[in-house]
């Protein structure tokens, strides 16, 4: 056993309201610079939709991630042979138009335009050339456009859904969508690291954050191709690639990353997971169907005596072990088994997990006769003359799983490499928690029914309370359990304190010497 610690995340998709606050927080701190305008280290996309960059999930186009062929796992579009022979021209590199051309508006024209008969306008201009442009695409232009021909219908996750299944999804009355916020997954088997010919990208041993050394990056651009999530971006101005850094300066100071801190829906959780690095190699070589199990098996129980002993032997700090024991991520991923990684079939072992969405998927539309109700209303009240009811009742719980508005297959394509049972399992649990709470708060569910449902979902009442608490009530320090960076060690990350002893002044990285 080779126990290491990883700062990992859970995003609870039922709670995301698609407000993009996270994206803007990140942009303001990190990517508000020339060459980085088009980068959204954090982005939120609507599903079904094509995402950002357009159709990133389609590895037939972008050739990202790992693939297993004849028992060997290799990078699909990069690697030693392909990377070095394609170094002069990378045939699988997305170009800026696959994302969008960054733009701004000439706001000053609104104020400075000379007096005339026409209203002044702020024309859009390209942030690359400065010329006026016709904006064709933006980072979130598939927002809420479920059912649209250009976006939703081109979603790569539809590959194995039949025409009819898709049509059913897009019927106007039944149409549904949900949001998918994405950041770098800080993978355990990062394709970006493996693809970098310069060796500029590395995973930090202490917390698993994947970083690009800007001094060593030489713009060979292989990471952009290799990352199947397209979370490594090429800065066209500096000629260096950049990616999400999980706000490591904030984490080291005990603060939550900016996207998580600012999240309006409070969907984000961050905590430590202990994992067994010695099993990674064999895990990534397993079959698609078993990949998730192997992935989750890597994560170790932080309460297990042996794990603790091995962790200590490996130099994992006591405070980190403690953080792992309180980790909300551990609870969601292992204890309650509620969260899944995004596209595990890319084989990078992503360490950002998602609780699959239940609400937009489960609610059914029922045709009802609402004449009676209408008659009771005040005649001046506005009332809509349609008979559709957005039904979130739970009477038909298990029955409705098969009538859900999203085919299970669609979500399974995203979160479980096609395993529908896994998604069903999560949905059952989420529903069971709701029924359990409904018994407590509304009281129209019998104890017998609620207990039955919990049992069927494999949760105890206590666990259901835990899920409820962490989902609905959790405070800041419950959602973000950040292991202390150890100030004394953090200083030593930069300098050996012994060297600095007896020196003068502040802010010098080089030795202070007397002039000659």
């Amino acid at each position: 056993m080779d126990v290491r610690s990883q700062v990992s995340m859970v995003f609870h998709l039922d709670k995301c309201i698609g407000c993009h606050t996270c994206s803007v927080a990140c942009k303001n701190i990190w990517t508000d610079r020339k060459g980085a305008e088009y980068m959204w280290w954090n982005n939120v996309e609507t599903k079904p939709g094509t995402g950002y960059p357009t159709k990133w999930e389609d590895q037939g186009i972008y050739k990202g991630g790992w693939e297993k062929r004849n028992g060997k796992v290799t990078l699909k579009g990069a690697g030693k042979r392909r990377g070095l022979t394609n170094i002069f021209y990378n045939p699988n590199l997305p170009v800026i138009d696959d994302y969008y051309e960054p733009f701004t508006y000439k706001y000053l024209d609104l104020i400075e335009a000379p007096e005339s008969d026409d209203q002044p306008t702020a024309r859009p201009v390209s942030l690359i050339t400065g010329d006026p442009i016709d904006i064709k695409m933006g980072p979130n232009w598939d927002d809420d456009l479920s059912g649209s021909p250009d976006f939703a219908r081109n979603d790569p996750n539809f590959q194995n859904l039949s025409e009819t299944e898709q049509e059913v999804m897009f019927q106007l009355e039944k149409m549904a969508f949900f949001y998918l916020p994405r950041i770098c997954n800080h993978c355990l088997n990062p394709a970006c690291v493996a693809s970098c010919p310069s060796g500029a990208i590395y995973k930090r041993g202490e917390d698993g954050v994947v970083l690009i050394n800007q001094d060593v990056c030489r713009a060979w651009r292989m990471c952009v191709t290799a990352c199947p999530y397209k979370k490594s971006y090429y800065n066209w101005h500096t000629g260096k690639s950049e990616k999400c850094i999980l706000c490591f300066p904030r984490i080291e100071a005990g603060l939550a990353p900016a996207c998580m801190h600012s999240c309006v829906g409070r969907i984000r959780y961050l905590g430590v997971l202990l994992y067994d690095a010695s099993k990674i190699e064999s895990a990534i070589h397993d079959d698609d169907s078993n990949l998730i199990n192997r992935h989750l098996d890597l994560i170790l129980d932080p309460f297990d005596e042996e794990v603790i002993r091995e962790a200590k032997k490996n130099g994992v700090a006591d405070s980190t072990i403690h953080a792992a024991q309180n980790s909300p991520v551990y609870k969601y991923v292992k204890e309650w088994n509620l969260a899944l990684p995004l596209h595990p079939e890319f084989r990078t072992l992503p360490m950002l997990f998602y609780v699959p969405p239940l609400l937009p998927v489960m609610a059914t539309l029922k045709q009802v006769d609402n004449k009676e109700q209408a008659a009771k209303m005040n005649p001046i009240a506005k009332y809509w003359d349609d008979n559709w009811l957005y039904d979130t009742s739970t009477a038909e719980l298990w029955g409705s799983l098969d009538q859900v508005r999203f085919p299970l297959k669609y979500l399974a394509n995203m979160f479980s490499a096609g395993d529908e049972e896994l998604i069903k399992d999560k949905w059952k649990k989420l529903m069971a928690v709701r029924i359990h709470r409904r018994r407590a708060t509304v009281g129209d569910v019998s104890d017998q029914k609620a207990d039955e449902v919990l049992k069927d979902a494999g949760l105890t009442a206590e666990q259901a309370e835990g899920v409820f608490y962490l989902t609905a009530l959790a405070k800041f320090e419950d959602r973000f359990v950040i292991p202390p960076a150890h100030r004394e060690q953090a200083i030593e990350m930069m300098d050996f304190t012994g060297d600095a002893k007896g020196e003068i002044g502040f802010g010098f990285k080089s030795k202070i010497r007397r002039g000659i």
Partner: protein
Amino acid sequence: MEIFNDFFFIALPYVALAMFLVGSIYRYTKKGFQLSSLSSQFLEGRRLFYGSAPFHWGVVVVFTGHLISFLFPRSVLAWNSQPVRLMILEITGFVFGISMLIGLVNLFIRRYTTPRLRFVTNKMDMIVYLLLITQTFAGLWVAYNFRWGSSWFSSLLAPYLYSIFMFEPDTSSVIMLPWPVQLHIITAFVIIALIPFSRLIHFLVVPFHYIWRPYQQVRWYWNRREVRSADTPWTLQRPKNN
């Protein structure tokens, strides 16, 4: 004439090599952030193929050819002793030279006709393009008009270059050569001098080490296992990045 020769074939080479050495080391050690191939494929990814690929593969072969003739002149002469082999060598070199020229012209046109690229192009890029085009064209001209270059390079130029590197410059062979050959030599040294001051520097950081390195890289600030052990001498506890 004497001065002219001494300047271009003795002074220039030494200045160029000194600039190259000092400049490259300085830039590599002190300006890591500015060391990049500055790829523009992200802004224009279609026409680049017809420029970058033929140019770079051409350079790889032609440069290797020059290097081999310089390092092993006798072997090259021995190889060339049979006309068929000489022809193979010359034609290969010429074809890749043409490939370079085509690539360069494509790159040049691409760079100055794509609006977006104007914003990632500086004056040095223009100088580099013009020098490389001149150099490639002169090389092809020489190869075509003064046959067979691979042989006389080995017998005339290799000794001259050796004399430079041995610090006993002997220009007797170069001053006899026709002016296009001399131009080719002079431009070569100018290009070498400009390497640390232009994007050409990226050829020094070709990532060969990728071949030997394991795919995944995990970096620790220090070896925590050792740090935690009481037996570890204190000198080992120093962080490695210091």
